[in-house]
């Protein structure tokens, strides 16, 4: 059965994993947002901060 299905071969640059790209961008934005929150809000905003 499988022999009858059309097979299309595409080259390396023709295959665009858009879903993967979208996922990675989402992960990236989550990371950036969490880092900003953690460093600037949770850490630097957590006075008293050791300055010497």
């Amino acid at each position, binding site marked *: 059965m499988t022999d009858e299905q059309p097979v299309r071969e595409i080259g*390396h640059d023709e295959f665009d994993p858009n879903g993967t790209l979208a996922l*990675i961008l989402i992960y990236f934005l989550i990371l*950036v947002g969490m880092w900003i929150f953690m*460093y600037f809000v949770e850490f*630097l905003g*957590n006075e*008293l901060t*050791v300055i*010497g």
Partner: protein
Amino acid sequence: MDIHSYEKIWLVLAVLLIAGFVSTVTYGATAVGVQMIDDDGGTINANALDEDPRFSNPRVEQVGENHYAAYVVAQQFIFRPDPITVPANSTVTFYVTSPDVIHGFEVVGTNANTMVVPGQVSKLTVNVDEPAEYGILCNEYCGSGHHTMEGKLIVKPESEYAQGGSTDRLRHSNPVRRASGTGSPTRRLSSGQLS
């Protein structure tokens, strides 16, 4: 090497992310002035704190125009002085040491937090702003009364502080602990053992 254009995107993003991490930490260390606590405080004979002018009488002392030094002894299972009273809008340098075992010195809910090692003086400087009351606790297991080991940091308005807020150590030596709802019988016992 054949690198797909999408792969290039996330390689670049990963490098940018690392650069961002490094630059925020650099920003904190330079613009904000965040420092690590190191061995600046120097060493001390843990068996002879009584002979050290700083720690024989744990206290808060004015050392500059708007700079105060708090000499704190962390011991099983109290902090001295208690409370530590400082004026608002000032710079406070804590010198903390221990005569017995390793303790922690953590101003609860803040970044002011250090280990207190016998024989070593932990030195940390902070800026205090508004009048407030902070808890201080020991975050290194130091013995059977560890869970009751706590103190208080009181930031008083400058006007109140000038009226003698820093000298009433004796009056505050056995303070009412409104803030803590736990372990008061044990606390009284352990404080009493040491006095």
